[in-house]
């Protein structure tokens, strides 16, 4: 089912909760080394898809793999992925540094082997000075930065990021975007779910738009933009998004 250059592959991926279908027959193929922007309105099924791809929930139907490993095989999957969920999974009682060391221990990785990269990321994100403060005293942005470092410090082949710039100030958000590009440049794949369309427009190589559990469009940002509004010159990704997801306000866009 997998190809060597395909980082993420989903074939008819489906998730139902009772009578509600959260994700319906989703087909995806994300190449290695790209930033894949995953867009969709609230409740479209983005988080559920991300959870299926990281083995956190079981699909009701279909199959998916990350780096050739089936997503239901969490034992092998953990070596390939890093996840930043919407709510930073941190312990309030630990300091930032202790949290990062704990995450390394969970992966059975010595802190010494990842500390250089972790501390470099913290430095870049302006977090280094606060690493020895307890997380209970962190702002939302600081917690988000810590969770980001935690997700990528072990150099995973595929990084899943759910709203990574949430709570970050503009400077930190810009730094994070640049870090995401660095990760992709090192041949890792970034699966990025966000509502902030300019972020996707700026850094994503490819975009998928999910609506009501269906993938309604996929392509490079400029391709989607070009298709929006019948090819109007001043259309942007937001127009494309609104058009594809049939938002009532789409017509008011321009």
């Amino acid at each position, binding site marked *: 089912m997998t190809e060597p250059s395909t980082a993420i592959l989903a074939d008819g991926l489906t998730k139902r909760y009772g009578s509600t279908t959260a994700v319906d027959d989703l087909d995806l193929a994300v190449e290695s080394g790209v930033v894949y922007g995953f867009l969709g309105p609230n409740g479209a099924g983005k988080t559920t898809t991300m959870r299926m791809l990281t083995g*956190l929930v079981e699909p009701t139907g279909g199959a998916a793999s990350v780096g050739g490993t089936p997503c239901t095989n969490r*034992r092998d999957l953990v070596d390939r*992925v890093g996840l930043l*969920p919407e709510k930073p999974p941190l312990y309030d*009682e630990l300091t930032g*540094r*202790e949290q990062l060391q704990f995450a390394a221990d*969970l992966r059975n990785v010595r802190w010494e082997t990842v500390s250089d990269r972790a501390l470099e990321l913290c430095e870049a994100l302006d977090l280094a000075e606060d690493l020895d403060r307890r997380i209970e005293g962190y702002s939302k942005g600081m917690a988000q930065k810590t969770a980001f470092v935690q997700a990528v410090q072990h150099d995973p082949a595929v990084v899943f990021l759910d709203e990574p710039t949430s709570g970050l100030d503009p400077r930190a958000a810009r730094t994070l975007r640049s870090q995401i590009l660095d990760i992709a440049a090192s041949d890792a794949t970034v699966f990025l779910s966000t509502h902030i369309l300019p972020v996707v427009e700026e850094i994503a190589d490819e975009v998928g738009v999910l609506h009501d559990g269906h993938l309604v469009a996929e392509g490079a940002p400029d391709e989607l933009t070009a298709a929006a509004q019948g090819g109007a010159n001043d259309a942007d990704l937001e127009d494309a998004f609104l058009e594809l997801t049939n938002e009532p306000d789409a017509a008011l866009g321009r």
Partner: protein
Amino acid sequence: MSDGPADGRGSGGRSTGGRPTDGQPTDGRPGSRPATWRSRIRNDVRDARVLARTELRCRVRDVRGSARKLLSVAFMAFAFGVFFPLVLWGVATGFGRALASGSPPLGTAGVAFGGIAVLGLYVGGASGFNQEAAGAVGPLVRTSISPTAMSLGRLGSESIQATAVGVPTAVALLLEVAVGARGPVAPALLAVASLPVFLAALAVGRLLGDAIRYASEVLRVSLWTKVLVFLAVTVVGYVGSYRFVYAGLDETGGLAGALPPAFLPGAPLQAYAGVAFAPLGADPRPLGGLVAALLLAAVPLGFAAAVRWETHLLLRESPGDEEQTSGSRGVPWPFTATPSARVAWRYLLRTRRDPRMLAHLGPLLFGMLGMGASVFRNPGSLLTVGPPAATIAGATVAGAAYCMNPLGDDRDQLPLLLTSTRSVAVLLRGRVLAGLVLGLLLAVGVGTPLSIASTSVVSTLALAGFAVVLSLAGAGTALGIGAVLPRFERREYMSVERAHPSTIALICYLFGGLFVGGIGVFMVAWSVDAHSLLLPAIAWTVYLAVLALFGGGGYVAAVRKFDRLTLDET
């Protein structure tokens, strides 16, 4: 009272379009006239009623939406509405008969009123101290209804919720008193007389709870100090009530008829009973009248003071807690040995920084206090009972501390845990190790010195070795229980809101541990003194096989269960 300025603003207050401001609210509608004190009170009472009704409705819906909670309520209704009244049938009907005899037993009535007062103080004190939601409603207070209405509403809803548990018992007991008295007059008088006692105690208790909360905030008391004070108060309260109850009982276990004078000099509650039961032939004394007047005055004054103080506390900026919130700690030897040991250290470190992580051990504490009753009666028995009790208690703590709800109490961190570990075994072993550290501190740290002081070195070593084995088995068993009955939903217990383990599972574990540990402790003593090796060897083989089955089986079951855990199940 003046109507205030006619421009719609309270003097000194901000113009907020009718929103209550710094003590000068309007009547709550934009553009309306400033409020008079009467309309303010009316509005506050109305808002408080809405708030209390909403909180109570949410509570009812919360219970109705969960089969487990419904079952728990049904169990409590049975226990409080049927079981306790049945146990007290003889006492209650006898009391009813005595009340209607023409010479009411004022001593017994005084004891009953004393019990009601203690209950009111406890309920009020606990609800006044446990104001966990105060931080959550703070923004609401500042942007919507008046702070007074907020305090009033919360006081009402919390008092009703806390009191509701006792209503079935009260009604059933009054019915039994009616049966004994062969008429409704005696229970009606008892109910009317009990109400001011309970309400006054509730108000005073609430003020006491508020005062303790305020003091701990102002003094910036550390969490550990709070925990130690709580433990000290619990032990003192337990020993006090134990002595109180025993002092109030006669040789046959019946009520002695009078409150011990050491607790309430002058027997004011008996005097109050004289006034309350005067229509039944009791002889009222002036002291009783004074007590009745004080009680009746204490109810409105106490509640008014509580509302005023809680309003002040709601609006007060918290001083914050800057103590020791910085500084990372590395993993010390020997915890550096394995990833599991490093994980164990992090659990211990987190507990040291926030001991509320172990709030779920409350039932164990109360259970141990109950079982330690013989020591309170006879302190000399400490050396005899202490070592085996510490061994069993330590083993129980080893399992209950971190293993009863593995991953359940890490619910918010599950996305990290499940996508970072090839198997949760590393995490579970970390929890076992952390539990062992705490358990053995108690079992060996306390049990061994007591044992050395009372028995031989061989017995002491045997008991210490057994403590290690039992603790390990206890932790494994607890993991198994936690795998069968995981709890992912957050709930408030002992004023701590988190995903606590199932209380029923915890209590079963406590009694199971007591039973299995008791057998083992007996076997240790028997084996040390045995003349033949054969029988002890056979007995220990069987016993250790059972421990291994439960401990090892629990661990394996937990690893299998949680390695397959998905967020769908949480």
